């Protein structure tokens, strides 16, 4: 089984996949607890706009996805926190709006359907060395910020109002969190695909919460689930020639069902 690691493309896919699993599970814990789960799905659709623009104009799809996702994340947080709009409504607008825009851009060019397919559903063959370097840089920065502000983000997820009155800079940290999530999602599209990254961010924390433990332990378990499912999904993808994103998400679903059955109440 380990012979798959002899292939350089599989080595790159595993490095990228494990990096994304770690980041997605950790940041996902905060958005799940804040009933903000659809943020990942929405930003994934927005990053598809960036990919489309990138391919259409011959720019780096990955960088364009990062830019589009970041701008959308700030707009979403601005509308939610400053204008007091319901978060699910804002997310619904951005989700459908960005998908419409991406479809228009794709139909205008009409020449990159095959390439777009790999961005939609992920492909282990598509991870390049340059992608790994970009992922490593942004991933390390995101992880450092998540670790540094772990306790503050937890406090905000538990009780935003009391966190604010205890002197924590809630608005700034909220913008930081959505920015980190935007970057993680944009970086993940090579491996997991834009349509499936939401699952990697949401399912591990939801499954881990079922075990009824404290936040620190729940986060560790969530990371463990995400790492295990990425390894299993990439392996299935290699041996059965499946799209990597779909294989990973199916493994996550199995983990979720297991958590559900084991913790029946």
């Amino acid at each position, binding site marked *: 089984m380990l012979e798959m690691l002899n292939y350089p493309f599989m080595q790159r896919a595993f490095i990228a996949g494990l990096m994304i699993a770690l980041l997605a599970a950790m940041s996902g814990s905060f958005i799940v*607890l804040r009933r903000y789960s659809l943020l990942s799905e929405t930003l994934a659709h927005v990053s598809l706009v960036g990919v489309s623009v990138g391919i259409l104009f011959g720019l780096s799809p990955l960088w364009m996805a990062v830019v589009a996702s970041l701008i959308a994340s700030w707009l979403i947080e601005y509308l939610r926190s400053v204008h007091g709009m319901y978060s699910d409504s804002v997310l619904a607008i951005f989700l459908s709006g960005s998908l419409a825009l991406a479809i228009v851009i794709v139909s205008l060019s009409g020449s990159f359907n095959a390439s777009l397919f790999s961005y939609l559903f992920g492909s282990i063959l598509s991870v390049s060395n340059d992608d790994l370097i970009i992922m490593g840089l942004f991933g390390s920065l995101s992880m450092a910020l998540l670790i*540094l*502000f772990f*306790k*503050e983000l*937890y*406090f905000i997820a*538990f*009780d935003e*109002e*009391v*966190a*604010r*009155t*205890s*002197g*924590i800079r809630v608005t700034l940290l909220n913008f930081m969190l959505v920015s980190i999530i935007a970057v993680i999602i944009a970086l993940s599209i090579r491996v997991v695909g834009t349509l499936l990254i939401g699952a990697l961010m949401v399912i591990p924390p939801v499954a*881990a*919460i*079922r075990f*009824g*433990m*404290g*936040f*620190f*332990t*729940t986060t560790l378990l969530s990371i463990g689930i995400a790492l295990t499912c990425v390894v299993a999904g990439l392996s299935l993808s290699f041996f059965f020639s499946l799209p990597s994103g779909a294989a990973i998400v199916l493994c996550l679903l199995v983990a979720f069902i297991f958590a559900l059955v084991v913790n029946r109440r």
Partner: protein
Amino acid sequence: MKFSPSLFDVRNVNFTRGDNEILKSVNLTILPGEYCAIIGPNGGGKTTLIRLLMGLEKPSSGTIKLFGTEQAKFREWHRIGYVPQRSALVDATFPATVREVVAMGRYARRGIFGFESSEDVSAIEESMEQMGVADLRDRLIGHLSGGQRQRVMIARALASHPQVLIVDEPNTGVDVESQHRFYELLRVLNKTKGIAILFITHDVGVIAEDISKLFFVNQTLLLSQTPQEMLRCDSMSRLYGTPAHVVCHNH
């Protein structure tokens, strides 16, 4: 910081939301060690007043000073413990142990790079012991009773070693026995630790003893006086806008 005897100093504060005047011309002062209660009818602006004190709302006009400092420049929020309305209503599945919740009270003091110091650990342990929740440390907060959760929330507020504790309608969703234990607890904190207390309540009978100052709020601060003066029929009628008759009993 410039020395000031008052913890809260509110001067001519008005607060409007849209066309609604929620509070007008409010003036009040709270001194160290005072044991104060706010009463008033529903929708009278009690919670808004607390939210203004905590900086969660901005006054339309007027000034608020905390520990002698203009609210906008105030940074030492750990000196104020705050337990908002319905804070004890926690999602049953939220992954937070009692210990983790109480530890949140120390976060602002620890700063970005701060790990939990021995001082943090002792403050957390002390406040859990004080509130009688130390034995529940590993239990999920959502699995506790309303009264237990309420004590955990107070323990969190106490962990930052505040000089004043603000509690908004503490007994929402809590049984009568827990309510009495709770008021007793506030008294003990005030008497033994010297922590100033400010809380909102509808239970005027329970607060008659020991209160040093009562604030009647119904859009404006109608009265600020001792419980004995307050529990007169004319005062109560003025506050609630309807004829009131005060009956004393031994409970």
